[in-house]
């Protein structure tokens, strides 16, 4: 599978980034301004305009290899939205996308650190470590950052699950944002992210977020889809590169995701 490469900085994009969402609504309007509307969710389009500056020879080579591999706008590739959370249902851990170990108990709608009621309480009544995780269908070779808010009255730490890595992070009775970031030595086409609890502990969590970059940006809530677009395409059949000096390149890209293609 083709996927959009990360830069050496670990980011997928640079500022400025523009993202545009387009919906389609069929409207029947009467001359008295009454309207009958019909939504067409299958026609939704998401588009990104990326401006990349100061690319190196290797970064440019990866970008050109992708463009040639997908033959311009002909075939799709995996694109990870640089301004979104890759996890789906970030505040509804009872959805099917989340895999909880059988004896892990969850209580929802607790007060969260951002003033809402999107936090969850996870309890592990067993004598083994239990996990709550979600599989993201994105290449494990890229670098990712998993972040979440956590607090606990009894447990001094929470484990962040990032593929095969489990990172223990200290927590306290006040909400703390903890992160686990890095790149795995794996070529798998999917990767798990989540939390693990030590035996006999209870931890409040909120705001699970995964981004394809080296550190966490402000938390973004998601619903049925995260920022993983397996059928993204280049909008155009041409890729223009400007060489601004030896080993220094810049280019502008338009990427689209169209559900009905």
């Amino acid at each position, binding site marked *: 599978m083709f996927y959009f490469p990360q830069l050496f900085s670990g980011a997928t994009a640079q*500022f*400025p*980034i*523009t*993202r*545009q*969402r*387009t*919906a*389609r*609504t069929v*409207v029947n309007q009467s*001359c*008295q*301004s*009454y*309207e009958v*509307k*019909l*939504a067409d*969710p299958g026609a939704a389009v998401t588009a990104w305009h990326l401006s990349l500056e100061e690319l190196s020879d290797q970064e440019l080579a990866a970008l050109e290899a992708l463009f040639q591999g997908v033959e311009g706008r002909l075939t799709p590739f995996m694109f990870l939205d640089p*301004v*979104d959370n890759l996890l789906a249902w970030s505040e509804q851990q009872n959805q099917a996308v989340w895999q909880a170990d059988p004896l892990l108990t969850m209580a929802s709608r607790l007060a969260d650190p*951002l003033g809402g009621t999107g936090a969850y309480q996870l309890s592990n009544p067993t004598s083994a470590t239990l996990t709550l995780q979600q599989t993201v269908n994105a290449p494990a070779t890229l670098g990712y950052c998993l972040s979440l808010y956590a607090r606990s009255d009894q447990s001094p730490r929470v484990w962040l699950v990032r593929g095969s890595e489990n990172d223990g992070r200290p927590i306290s009775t006040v909400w703390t944002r903890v992160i686990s970031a890095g790149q795995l030595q794996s070529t798998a086409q999917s990767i798990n992210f989540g939390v693990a609890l030590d035996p006999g502990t209870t931890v409040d969590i909120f705001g699970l977020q995964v981004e394809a970059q080296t550190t966490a*940006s*402000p*938390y*973004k*809530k998601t*619903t049925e889809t995260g920022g993983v677009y397996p059928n993204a395409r280049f909008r155009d059949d041409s890729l223009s590169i400007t060489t601004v000096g030896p080993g220094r390149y810049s280019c502008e890209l338009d990427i689209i995701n169209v559900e009905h293609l």
Partner: protein
Amino acid sequence: MFPTLKTGAVIQYPAKRTLQFNTDAIRFLDGTEQRFRDNPFVLREWNIHLDLLDEAELDALDQFFLSNQGRFGSFSFTDPWDGTVYASCSLKGDVSAFQLTGEMRGKTILTVCQNRT
């Protein structure tokens, strides 16, 4: 409900509100006109220009656009000029875009219009 910014505000300067009547005019051969209203009341529209937003604020607006499926959905909107709540409003367009030029430097434009109910 339309999302508010972290400041609690809905809108930033420059703010624009439009009042829209819908009048039909029939002109006769002798030059006289007969006019009548198609709408029983004025319909309002608000142009919301937002700048210097952080990613959480942009995300809230994005989620709002997605949950409304563009101009399909309806919601109640509080007029920031006078606090009047209009029970049935919609986004005017099917397109929502934002630009991030740096951290906490996002900007977007939305238009909310009052529906005739």
